[in-house]
């Protein structure tokens, strides 16, 4: 995975959210805070989720904006937001959200790299259970 996609400030490991929308807003806020996207991207993430769930398995969801919202993406980035108590994601328990902001095809490679990690049970668990920012950075950069 490209080194410049994940800002350590966008790794939040001890969050809680009452529901899916709140979790998505938290992810969107993290992307706004590192300057990757403008504010309207958050609503676009909620809109996308209503169209189709971004749950991918292994307790992980990958919220991201609609195609139309690419205009407000300033640079490709991901955020990693962990919800240790879990969030009900349309019936699936989610403990880790990887929020994505990407222009063009950048996100496909990024998703492929993330999927490879999640397909490896050891690495998936390390990512879901990480309590230090450094562990997450290491998993996603290796």
């Amino acid at each position: 995975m490209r080194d410049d996609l994940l800002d350590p400030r966008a790794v939040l490991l001890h969050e809680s959210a009452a529901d899916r929308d709140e979790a998505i807003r938290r992810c969107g806020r993290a992307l706004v805070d590192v300057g990757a996207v403008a504010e309207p991207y958050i609503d676009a993430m909620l809109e996308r989720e209503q169209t189709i769930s971004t749950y991918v398995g292994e307790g992980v969801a990958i919220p991201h904006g609609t195609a139309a919202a690419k205009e407000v993406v300033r640079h490709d980035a991901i955020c990693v937001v962990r919800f240790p108590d879990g969030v009900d994601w349309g019936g699936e328990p989610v403990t880790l959200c990887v929020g994505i902001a990407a222009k063009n095809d950048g996100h496909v490679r990024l998703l492929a790299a993330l999927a490879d990690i999640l397909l490896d049970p050891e690495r998936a668990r390390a990512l879901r259970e990480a309590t230090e920012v450094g562990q997450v950075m290491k998993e996603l950069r290796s």
Partner: protein
Amino acid sequence: MAQRTVTVASASGLHARPAKLFVQEAVRLGVPVRIRVGEKSVPANSMLGVLSLGATQGTEVTLESDAPGADAALDALVALLAQDLDAEGALDG
């Protein structure tokens, strides 16, 4: 072994929305199918597997199955990949 090769039509590749629609259809069909890019082959009903292929628009993918009903299932999945699933209003999703 029934086999079809098709080029991914979705503008942003086989990522979240197009991948989800594809995987949902593979699950609904209930016929074991594998999707392959180059040497990498994964089950068509695995979201993570399909995402791990990293297929972009124009990527050539091969669908394979030797299960009963393979031909009909492959035809249905090929038809999905050959349309732009990013277009709002594509299918019902």
